[in-house]
């Protein structure tokens, strides 16, 4: 018996090994027939990039190109790797710079300007880079999500402003993320700075601390373990820092066939944070024309309309239609807090240090 087991396991191992190459993933390319060998375009991004097969296949077929994707970490890590590899670029195009890292990206001078014809269809307030070195692809809002039924069950009104969260009536209801280790956490911190001013935000955080705010290190932990809707556990916290698009995402991925999201956006006036994501062509690319075509493609309607249900952010192209689930449950905020990218770059460390001193020490 043991011999047979041994033999079987050896065969299994050999079979795995002789299957040789680690199995790959078809990125939507269809049969090319007899045409020329497709060129490869390397697209670098952060870890959250995704798009649907058909849309990418459109681009690949139209241009006889094979897209190769590289994931370089979260937004900050990815940009740093791009900057460090300036002399030997990792990719031809990079998607994933957001407005909190915009200054760092522009100062590092790793991108090539490209005035895409598609820019005519992009709303002007997203074009934070006048030189078009970095072009806006999508935007999202860091917002507060609340559990509707939790508040309803206790006969409480939903909090509507930031000050409500510091009110003792809502003690112990909020979970936030550490701005040093979480991008939405940092966005929320910057929201409070924009809303209360540099002189007042620390007092607000002190009030939150007195009101028993819970701080986690990352979004996954906050959402999936400490938020009632995300964890399915009624005993944790009903308000979380997350994205405006989290309610429809929660609905799409609900396990119980519901028709309305369990969470709702609080969208306090002037207290959501708009995050814009940019794409740029890297210096040193040898496929400039193809890269430009890809940027055009990313800003064009087919890709833009694909974005909401893939990455759960809003498209920057004004002609792109939002899916119903977005218009119903995740309207874009109309008055987000705005902080200048250059200010973010120069003050980030000071703000994070001040916050850490107050909240964690």
């Amino acid at each position: 018996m043991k011999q047979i087991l041994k033999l079987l396991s050896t065969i299994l191992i050999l079979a795995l090994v002789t299957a040789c190459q680690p199995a790959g993933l078809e990125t939507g390319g269809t049969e090319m027939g007899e045409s020329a060998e497709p060129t490869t375009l390397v697209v670098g991004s952060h870890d959250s990039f995704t798009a649907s097969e058909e849309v990418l296949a459109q681009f690949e077929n139209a241009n006889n190109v094979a897209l190769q994707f590289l994931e370089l970490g979260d937004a900050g890590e990815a940009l740093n790797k791009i900057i460090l590899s300036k002399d030997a670029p990792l990719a031809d195009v990079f998607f994933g710079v957001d407005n909190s890292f915009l200054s760092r990206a522009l100062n590092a001078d790793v991108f090539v300007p490209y005035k895409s014809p598609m820019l005519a269809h992009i709303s002007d307030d997203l074009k934070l880079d006048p030189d078009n070195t970095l072009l806006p692809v999508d935007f999202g809002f860091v917002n507060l999500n609340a559990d509707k039924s939790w508040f309803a069950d206790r006969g409480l009104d939903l909090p509507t402003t930031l000050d409500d969260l510091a009110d003792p009536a809502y003690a112990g209801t909020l979970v936030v993320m550490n701005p040093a280790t979480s991008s939405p956490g940092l966005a929320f911190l910057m929201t409070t700075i924009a809303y209360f001013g540099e002189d007042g935000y620390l007092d607000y955080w002190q009030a939150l601390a007195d009101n028993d705010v819970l701080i986690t290190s990352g979004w996954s932990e906050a959402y999936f373990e400490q938020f009632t809707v995300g964890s399915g556990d009624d005993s944790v916290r009903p308000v979380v820092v997350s994205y405006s698009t989290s309610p429809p995402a929660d609905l799409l991925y609900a396990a119980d066939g519901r028709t309305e999201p369990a969470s709702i956006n609080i969208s306090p006036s002037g207290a959501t944070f708009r995050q814009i994501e940019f794409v740029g062509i890297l210096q040193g690319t040898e496929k400039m024309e193809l890269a430009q075509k890809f940027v055009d493609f990313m800003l064009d309607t087919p890709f833009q309309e694909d974005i909401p249900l893939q990455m759960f952010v809003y498209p920057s192209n004004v002609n792109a239609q939002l899916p119903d689930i977005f218009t119903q449950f995740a309207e874009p905020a109309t008055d987000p807090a705005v902080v200048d990218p250059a200010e973010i770059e120069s003050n980030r460390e000071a703000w994070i240090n001040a916050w850490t001193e107050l909240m964690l020490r």
Partner: protein
Amino acid sequence: MLRRLALRFLYSLPLLFLVFFFFYPLARILQRSLIVDGQLDLGSVFGTLTAPFVWKVLWFTTWQAALSTLCTVLIGLPLAYIFSHYEFPGKTIIKALITVPFVMPTVVVAAAFTTLAGSNGLLNQWLEAAFLLNEPPLQIMRSVWGILLAHVFYNVSVIVRTVGGFWSNLNPRLSEAAQVLGANRLRLLREVTLPLLLPSIVAASLLVFLFCFTSFGVVLILGGLRFATLEVEIYRQAVSLFNLPAAATLSLLQIAITFAIMTVYTRLQARASRPLEMNSQTRMTNRPSGAHEWLLLSGALLAALILLLSPLLALAWRSFTLGDAGFTLQYYAELTVNRRNSAFFVAPLVAVRNSLLYALMTMCLSLILGILSAYLLVRRPTTLPLLGDTVDRTARPAKRKFSSALLDPIFLLPLGTSAVTLGLGYIIAMGSLRTSPLLVPIAHTLIATPFVVRTFLPALRSLDPRLRESAAVMGASPSRVWREIDLPLLFRAALVGAVFAFTISLGEFGATLLVTRPDIPTMPIVIFRALGEPGLLNYGQALAMSTILMVVSAIGLVIIEQFRFGDVGEF
């Protein structure tokens, strides 16, 4: 002549590997960070080193690692005893399950711990119900206790397998002789067992210490954010603030400290080593006899299992019961569904296969390099009195070359180096290799090889050179000596190393070094992707894939443990 050249080349392979894949990228990133316009940026180096928070962080890093190691050793030794001396039903499975924690991503483990021991977790619920309390009595999460517990959870298998493997090969004659001469159990432990085990205890605790010292995810998630280790601080400086000089300085500080500790430890281990008469494992283990032995065994095992296995079981349980629908397989089914037609969808079997392939490649590569390194480190066989002739505890190995003494900790360096820094070094230094899939097993091998070296070395040093000499005198060629003396006696130690290399690769230690290629996905990648979007279906998928990871690792471990080839195995 040719043979000597071939041997020299073989022996230099591990060094070449280290130089190319460790020292070179490290040098490049340090150069990039610290050298401005051809000059060493001493200003920022001093600035970082004199910042008071750095020394606070360093102090915390050191004491939590030391305390974690102590706790792990204290819990691991009794378990090592049980596993090396007793046969009982389910032994293989339990041993595999104890090692599975090594493989689990920290985010997932944190979720499991929270389910069990969080303020609203199962334990607190039971305790509150049992003792009619109002407040949850256990507040261990987000505290040092959470960190300690998690470190023990992750690392106890290192002690159990390393020390246990060594222990099971020890000749019982010495203990028997001591008992005949009148030593009671305590004295036996103190004067015979522990000194004999010392090399492997030192080896295992060093590995555990290094892991705890460079701990990142555990401290970040389970420590409650009030604490930061050096590794966390390096991440903050390098990624969040892009302050490369500070990050590089801290990395150098970390390397210097771990190098110093490694040097002390390796000298200690070498001095404690002596040739021993090795025994077949099967002769040492037997079923417990009598009720009281069974009772003791079950009691200890139960305690261990509760500590070590319950988080895993809680995780698996949650993957079937998440949400309000009771027991369900929907999350496993969801893994196979590409709901959004995403081009980046990963079929679960593909991920499993890729992870296993990388793990097998890592295992083979690190075994070869690790065993070569170990032989390189003991190339001057010593002439020691064979224990049994004289129990001379003051006997010292013949003076070793200084280079050997230095090489020992050098092979350990990758374990003590910040993965963030090394990863950035790879970006600068590795050219077209940066995006190659081959880099994945290579990066894993970098972490796994020190493990193989450290677990193989005590066994190698304990090999009585007189056995080899006798074989040679009787006419065996050097390769035959190796095949028929070394191989059977050292097989068990090599197996322990192989097991760890396999688990290290499955758990993707050092994943931050690398550029991820979404076209070659692995199991941890699927888990992280699932945790990136809201929705219980996503959370459930993460739990389901984590459970699959656990099961695949356990099966892989069981298969490796049973591996024998030819008639080599137990002698």
